[in-house]
């Protein structure tokens, strides 16, 4: 499949239908112009792409961790107290439907165009969806598990740690997965508009330099990272939980 795409792309590039500046070749350079894979490997070799990837991922990690912590806390409060659900619960659902990049103008005014503004966008992108899945997960903990644990004498934080959290793990994992996807998109948008360093910034630089080979190689990196994290981290977590719990993946 990839090979077919590769051939089509290369053929269009060679056909001269578009100038190579718009449609750069992937691998085979005919007049000495830059190729996508060439730029990609060179970027990796001289550390430019790697460094940008590193900055992007560390921003992502920080924003994600904050979002998860806040999301779990708010989710617990919503599930635990009816009045929080009635007030905050509704607000969160409303906020969840606002794309996080919409917050950027506000973030720039609040924090200035820099690291903090980007972090804010990432965090806000992931927090609400995490809050919603956490509260759903906590609310759906079977009452039977709670009764069992309570008759054994569990309560308070022990009950949360040993029963409520593990019992809602299936919901939490899908929450993490969606939250991650939101954070990743928000981060790219944020970096594209205003950040120093990072993959989004590299994309913007590629546009400014009219170098689509750089843009495309960064896009490839972004796609690869996304796939790896989704497949290797979240799918694995999901599968191992399903196996342990004996939930079958098929319908």
């Amino acid at each position, binding site marked *: 499949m990839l090979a077919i795409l590769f051939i089509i792309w290369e053929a269009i590039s060679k056909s001269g239908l578009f100038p190579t500046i718009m449609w750069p070749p992937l691998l085979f350079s005919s007049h000495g112009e830059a190729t996508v894979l060439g730029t990609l490997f060179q970027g990796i070799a001289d550390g430019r792409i790697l460094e940008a990837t590193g900055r992007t991922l560390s921003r992502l990690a920080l924003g994600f961790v904050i979002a998860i912590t806040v999301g779990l806390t708010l989710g617990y409060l919503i599930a635990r107290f009816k009045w929080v659900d009635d007030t905050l619960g509704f607000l969160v659902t409303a906020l969840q439907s606002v794309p996080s990049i919409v917050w950027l103008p506000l973030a720039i005014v609040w924090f200035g165009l820099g690291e903090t503004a980007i972090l804010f966008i990432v965090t806000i992108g992931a927090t609400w969806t995490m809050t919603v899945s956490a509260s759903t997960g906590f609310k759906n903990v*079977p009452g*039977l*598990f709670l*009764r*069992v*644990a*309570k*008759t*054994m*004498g*569990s309560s308070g934080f*022990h009950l949360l740690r*040993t*029963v409520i959290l*593990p*019992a809602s*793990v299936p919901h939490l994992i899908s929450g993490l997965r969606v939250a991650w996807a939101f954070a990743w998109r928000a981060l790219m948008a944020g970096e594209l508009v205003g950040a120093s360093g990072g993959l989004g910034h590299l994309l913007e630089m590629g546009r400014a330099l009219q170098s689509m080979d750089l843009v495309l190689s960064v896009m490839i990196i972004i796609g690869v990272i996304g796939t790896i994290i989704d497949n290797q981290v979240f799918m694995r977590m999901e599968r191992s*939980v399903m196996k*342990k*719990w*004996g*939930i079958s993946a098929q319908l």
Partner: protein
Amino acid sequence: MQVELQQVNKLFQKENGQSLQVLENINLTIQQGEFLSLIGPSGCGKSTILHIIAGLEFPSEGQLLINGQQVKGPGPDRIVVFQESGLFPWMNVLENVMYGLLLKKMKRKEAEEKAMDALRMVHLGRFSKAFPHELSGGMKQRVAIARALVMDPDILLMDEPFAALDEQTRMVLHYELQEIWQKTKKTVVFITHNIREAVMLSQRIVLMGTRPGILKKEFLVEAAFPRDPSDSVLVHLEKRILASLEQEMEKVLKEEMGDDYRLQKDAHVSDPLYHLGSDI
């Protein structure tokens, strides 16, 4: 350990503000080491009584005394075995059984040994590393019983523990429960809607009436343990209880289906002499 329910009333608030009386004037004393069954039509409040003893629910009026002391809330001296095992799917069998022990701050090694002992008592020593979804319904219930026994409670509260099992498994578990009860001498409060089950297992059976839930009649089961299901004492008693229960059932069905309903008298009670050749 003696359990005493004194003039317990229980009201539930309905959505429309009205209250529904579930239990009315329940007076019940359960002696140390006794095996008592509560039996009655569904919705008669038998589970509510159990939950009150467990401390998961509270009487609206009246009180629950354990050894003369008023009780507030659940405690490790009263452990419940529920109809569905309620095993935690994220823990294996051994961890499930150890849960309560570790909660009591017991050392891990000691807890593991105790849990293994309890699992052997229900004949599941080989499955300690299995996860709940790998077990059959009967095995899950056995683990749930082991999880309760390992806490060494004074009272074992069983809320229709075998209702979801098939007949053969239930029979095996009846024998095992009798064996465990004789070995450990725990007080057992057993909820069921199955008369045969109550007759097979208990020393005393309390029949409940419904709407509101009252204690209607008491039966003593005077037969030796281990019980033999074909014991004529048991068969006879089963029939007597069924006759009393039918009156209650009729009341329930009438309320649900209107006045045109009439339960056919004795339609599902077979002639006890049938298998003795009465139709030759």
